[in-house]
């Protein structure tokens, strides 16, 4: 119902000129644009995959390690240590959050937290074996290992995990920083 006095005069027998119709049609065409401009701006999300910093890898020298004979996803610590002692070429991947890595980690490891794995796995060199680990000892490291494998790489999970590696006296960095249960996730 038209209630404003000026509009009330637009009774059903009022004729609207072609020029007026053009004005109305133009307004109708513009309305979606104006309406869309009134849509709320989506709140920011923090999952900024584009801003994720993926680790660089300095590939070690030596003959390639051979973990292909180990069935399944998990490799025993003794096998990993044996390959390390042989000077075989592979890379440790710390799957724990970056704060834990900053405190201490397996000597020579790179940090690829589990929550960045899906973004960063494909950026790793894929012609080398990766041994992932966490303190869980499997939850976070399995996510990273599976992401590397999904990207076309070769990965196993350190079965006993980081805490067992540390308590067995295998090399960590910094060497003297870890005591008691201070092992992170």
């Amino acid at each position: 119902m038209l209630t404003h006095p000026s509009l009330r005069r637009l009774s059903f027998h009022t004729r609207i000129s072609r020029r007026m119709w053009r004005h109305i049609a133009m307004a109708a065409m513009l309305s979606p644009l104006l309406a869309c401009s009134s849509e709320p701006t989506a709140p920011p999300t923090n999952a900024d995959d584009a801003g994720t910093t993926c680790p660089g890898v300095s590939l070690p020298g030596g003959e390639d390690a051979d973990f292909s004979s180990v069935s399944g996803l998990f490799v025993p610590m003794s096998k990993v240590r044996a390959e390390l002692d042989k000077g075989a070429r592979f890379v440790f991947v710390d799957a724990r959050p970056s704060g834990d890595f900053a405190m201490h980690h397996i000597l020579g490891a790179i940090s690829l937290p589990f929550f960045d794995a899906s973004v960063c796995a494909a950026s790793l060199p894929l012609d080398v074996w990766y041994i992932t680990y966490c303190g869980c000892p499997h939850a976070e490291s399995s996510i990273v290992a599976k992401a590397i494998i999904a990207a076309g790489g070769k990965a196993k999970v350190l079965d006993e995990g980081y805490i067992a590696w540390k308590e067995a006296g295998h090399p960590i960095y910094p060497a003297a920083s870890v005591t008691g249960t201070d092992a992170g996730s």
Partner: protein
Amino acid sequence: MHTLTANGPRARWMSAGLCVMSVWILGGCASEPVTPDPLEAARTDYARYCGLCHGDDGAGYIAPRANALSNDLFLAAASDDFLRVGIRDGRPGTKMSAWGVAKGGPLRADQVDGLVALMRSWQKRTTLTLDESKLTGNAAGGETIYAENCASCHGPAGEGGSALSLNHPVFLASVSDGFLRASILQGRPGTPMPAYAETLSASEVDSLIHVIRSFSPGK
């Protein structure tokens, strides 16, 4: 019969009015505003960083000792600062990492605040008014109560077991006596942590808290 043309000042005003009305009527989006979810970013962060251990809905214990963040009594007793410090500084030496950027983690202060707000959105009951009065008595007698009631889950020295640890310096520095009182008296319904309101007297609860405080290094 009138012929309304776009000539003349009155007609131009009417033309403009019609344009405005068309925009108003046809701009359907404007009449149905979509309310943005202020916690969307926090939900993303929670799923990315927290859910693996604490569960998608905060039910907890997906990983051992990852407590139930959505437990209503926990949220009713925990202050925002307690939650904030717990996320930011973590529990170094446990599976709970320090998530704040200052500790090498990925979360900015505003992201930590977002996670606190998300947890608050899970809280259904009114925030408790905690009894923060000075502890009475001392640890005498508390050791026996702890050994008989708490050690089997929290460890003989508060180091944790099936339940979370009580001896962590960050925990002890940030938790209040009122939070501990409320937690002991009311427990955590829906978890193995029972309520001791019918079992322990107020002085026995305070003795127990003295014992827990003694777990802190330097005391």
